[in-house]
């Protein structure tokens, strides 16, 4: 009963229509991984993380800009008192400051200027003579000079009654603390977001592995090592992570660029120029773009790594 058709055993190799067969199907079917949901999660997380990074960098840059501006100035305040010639006292104090080494520029505020400073609070049509308003002298430090401000404070205090020097130290310290707090909070938020992303990836990987259990078994049967199988999942998830990262990070970058343009277009508009005064400008600068870019790469790498770890751990529990 040897009815095996000879052609089956000995037929020369034939091509189907000249086409060569090829391995083109991924071993892990794409649709077996809840890819779109994960891409969305990663995109949202990257977007929020990028916004956080951008905000933190903006706060830091503005704070240090402010600090350096403010630290280059000291203010001498001359307080009024009954019987005190405020104009004379102001002129004396200004003279002392002008003569002090390391002080580049001294500008006493006149009565009218002081009035203008108070306008927003007290309204116009105010005569300072009626109010005991202190007078201000702003002294700018010479670039790269480190004058002995304690000495200056001492001299001013001794020679001009009612005068005191403010080097804004307390204010700068508070400002620094605030900026540091903002940075710490930002880093905390980033850590939480990365943790949430990793958890999502771990869940997605476990789901994908459960869905592909038969595939994994067959791969084991044909001699695949765990590392090879983990690599298959890792590749999928690296791609998903990159996609999500580029989408989310790209959206954030667009937003930054748009905000930069926007604040550029509307200079002169009061609220924008106030915001500009507060934040310098909305531009996050080259460092900002670089850090958002590295965040995209980082989130993709973290996604791939997490999925590899998850696969390895899960494979250890299989047979």
């Amino acid at each position, binding site marked *: 009963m040897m*009815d095996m058709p000879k052609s089956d055993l000995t037929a020369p190799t034939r091509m189907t229509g000249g086409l060569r*067969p090829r391995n083109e199907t991924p071993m892990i079917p794409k649709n077996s991984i809840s890819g779109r949901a994960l891409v969305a999660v990663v995109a949202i997380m990257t977007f929020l993380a990028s916004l956080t990074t951008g905000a933190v960098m903006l706060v830091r840059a503005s704070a240090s800009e402010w600090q350096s501006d403010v630290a280059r100035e000291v203010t001498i305040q001359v307080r009024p008192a009954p019987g005190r010639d405020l104009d004379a006292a102001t002129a004396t104090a200004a003279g002392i400051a002008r003569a002090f080494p390391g002080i580049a520029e001294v500008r006493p505020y006149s009565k009218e200027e002081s009035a203008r400073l108070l306008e927003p609070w007290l309204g116009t049509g105010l005569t300072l003579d009626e109010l005991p308003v202190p007078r201000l002298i702003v002294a700018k430090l010479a670039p790269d000079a480190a004058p002995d401000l304690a000495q200056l404070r001492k001299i001013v205090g001794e020679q001009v009654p009612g005068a005191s020097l403010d080097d804004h130290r307390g204010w700068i310290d508070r400002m620094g603390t605030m900026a540091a707090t903002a940075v710490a909070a930002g880093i905390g938020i980033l850590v939480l977001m990365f943790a949430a992303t990793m958890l999502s990836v771990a869940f997605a990987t476990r789901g994908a592995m459960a869905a592909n259990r038969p595939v994994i078994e067959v791969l084991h049967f*044909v001699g695949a*090592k765990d590392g090879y199988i983990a690599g298959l999942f890792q590749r999928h998830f690296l791609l998903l992570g990159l996609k999500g990262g580029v989408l989310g990070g790209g959206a954030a970058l667009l937003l930054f660029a748009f905000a930069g343009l926007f604040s550029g277009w509307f200079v002169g508009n009061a609220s924008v120029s106030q915001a500009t005064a507060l934040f310098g400008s909305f531009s996050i600068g080259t460092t900002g773009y670089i850090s958002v870019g590295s965040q995209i790469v980082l989130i993709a790498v973290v996604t791939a790594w997490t999925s590899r770890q998850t696969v390895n751990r899960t494979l250890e529990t299989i047979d």
Partner: protein
Amino acid sequence: MVRFENVGLRYGLGPEVLRDLTFRVEPHSFQFLTGPSGAGKTSLLRLLFLSIKPTRGLITQFGHDVATLGKDALATLRRRIGIVFQDFRLLDHMTTYENVALPFRVMGRHEDSYRDEVIELLNWVGLGERMWALPPVLSGGEKQRAAIARAVIARPQLLLADEPTGNVDPSLAQRLLRLFIELNKSGTSVIIATHDIALMDQYDARRLVLHDGRLHVYD
């Protein structure tokens, strides 16, 4: 090549499915593994394929005590063994060609180095026209041949087949048996688990008979 000494196997806390198995499988040998349904044929094949571990006894494969091997070493050893499952275990999302080429792909070999070999084997088992087909559209006999082709494509030194003629008609069963005999002649040790008496009567070979968890060898 394969050596079992006092091997016992139980699943969980159940009774011992296999008891005191002591036997050898020699290179280039051909044997049927038989016994009634539920006798433990599939379990013995899984032991031979290193996919389960015995509860006691010693198994030596290709000179290695398998109890001492790590997962990666077992995977490497498994590449020298081909297995045909009762339920084929083809990957439904891959073409017949891709399924058969899978062992090479997993080894990381370049496709150009094996494509012709795969095509040749597919033609040899009569699947030349079905290379592009996905397993769900193959007939039972075609799936069977695809599974066999995948098991033998990497020229294993040991071939295990679980009821390979279980769901094919007698004439195809005969052709498959011829295929196994050809393979054996080219140097592969073959173990065919079957309870098909008619099939065993067609070829005079060593018989390993499982009964009540014990193995009786008829050379």
